[in-house]
């Protein structure tokens, strides 16, 4: 026979499971609504361009700095290990494969989940609790199309651009790090870095960034659009957008790696 404490544990687990599946169902419904709305005119091109600017251009400095440091640190950290095996000449190839296949997309997506995802969650959450979304709805307009569709599209389209930018800056940082202890020309470094790259390294890593961007936009919008309980709810929406967005990025990455490994 179950004791009182065990019953409490079971009921708590049951509640957590129910909440989890309800959340999954609601996110699926929200995603379905996005795909339904995205193809129906009128299209909000002006707002899409504005949001793409906010997501893309406004994130460039942060992505650039982190990409640069990422390349620099990866090179400095890897050098002693490669030197032990006398394989220092492999450094540019190793760093480029690491950055382009995995570190660049994941780090950039995580930074965007923090910066862009939380921003979208907080902005839409604030609009929700101050009845601005309701005001759009009672004007006979479609707030979902104007606010949600444009933001999800913007993150989906801009994240690959940011990742390519971050990869380039990261490789430049790596080149500078290589030159701290050696003397390698810019042309030679990039020739070695690119020589070992194949389409299987580049194409899947770019494709998965579209999914990262979609996940960041979707979760930010979902959490913000459905936020409740005043200012506390806005904070929770921003926080949940980052936590769930980051988690989804790792899950998508795991799936992408499994699929990519089928072709290598």
């Amino acid at each position, binding site marked *: 026979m179950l004791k009182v404490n065990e019953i409490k544990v079971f009921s708590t687990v049951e509640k957590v499971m129910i909440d989890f599946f309800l959340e999954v169902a609601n996110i699926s419904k929200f995603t379905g609504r996005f795909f339904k709305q995205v193809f129906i005119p*009128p299209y909000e091109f002006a707002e899409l361009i504005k949001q793409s600017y906010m997501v893309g251009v406004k994130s460039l400095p942060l992505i650039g700095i982190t990409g640069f440091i990422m390349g620099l640190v990866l090179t400095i950290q890897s050098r002693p290990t490669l030197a032990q095996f006398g394989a220092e000449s492999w450094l540019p190839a190793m760093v480029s494969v690491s950055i382009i296949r995995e570190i660049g997309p994941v780090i950039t997506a995580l930074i965007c989940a923090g910066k862009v995802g939380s921003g979208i969650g907080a*902005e839409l959450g*604030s*609009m929700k609790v*101050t*009845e*601005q979304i*309701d*005001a*759009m*709805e*009672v*004007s*006979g*307009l*479609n707030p979902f199309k104007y606010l949600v569709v444009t933001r999800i599209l913007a993150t989906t389209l801009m994240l690959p651009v940011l990742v390519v930018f971050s990869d380039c800056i990261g490789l430049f940082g790596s080149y500078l790090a290589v030159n701290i202890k050696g003397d390698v020309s810019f042309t030679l470094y990039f020739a070695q870095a690119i020589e070992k790259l194949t389409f299987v390294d580049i194409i899947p890593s770019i494709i998965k960034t579209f999914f990262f961007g979609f996940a960041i936009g979707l979760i930010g919008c979902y959490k913000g659009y459905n936020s409740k309980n005043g200012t506390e709810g806005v904070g929770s929406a921003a926080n949940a957008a980052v936590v769930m967005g980051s988690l989804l990025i790792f899950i998508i990455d795991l799936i992408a790696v499994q699929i990519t490994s089928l072709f290598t």
Partner: protein
Amino acid sequence: MGAKIRANISDAKGIGSDRNGDILIEVKHLKKSFGNNEVFKDFSLALEKKENLVVLGKSGSGKSVLIKCMVGLIDADEGEILVMGEDIEKLNEKALNVLRKKIGFLFQSAALYDSMTVGENLAFPLRGNKELSDEERNALVEESLENVGLKDVIDKMPSELSGGMRKRIGLARTLILKPEIVLYDEPTTGLDPITAKEISELILEIREKYQTSSIIITHDLACAKIVSDRIVIIHEGVCAAIGTYETLQNSEDKWVRSFFE
């Protein structure tokens, strides 16, 4: 709690002035609950053409829920809400949006879009109208601002405005589509008595200028006295009393009178 003096809706028609009896909004036997909280048990109401109907009630009595049900922001559990003869619950999204353009809604907080200037806020409801040129759109924005006496703030951000100005801009945005019905959610809450009186007088001016019919949710008796043709008091999910300001103020029912003391 005093005895209810709930009047039959049809008995209440004709109270007030200058009305022709056309009903623009009709709520029949509305029921709405949030969990265990039964907000409306069996609520009925009718808004006539060019009428200003004030809704009074204690906090949490469901006044705001009522007008949100009327524009389809909240779904009713049971009952019928007919707006200009259309059952809100049965309309599809497209038809509902067409109907919503005929209804103005002034939110308690004015709900101005933070990221847009005053001019952009006012032009936003017009974006669905592709027939309007930029010049016509700008003219409508300026006209709406002029109607609320705030033509100079067109380039300001909502954060730069006072509470009274925000309410006026919210009202201007509501009026830009020239609605036939305006729903006001506590239009004078949080304002000083002078500004509150100005807003109340503006509500009357708007009725005269645009021939609107309005439902005004308020706690402000001074506002109710100025703007109302009829007053409805909601209590425990039903229409507890209905009549003109003077009728209810001099009601034989102590509980109803207590609202006006």
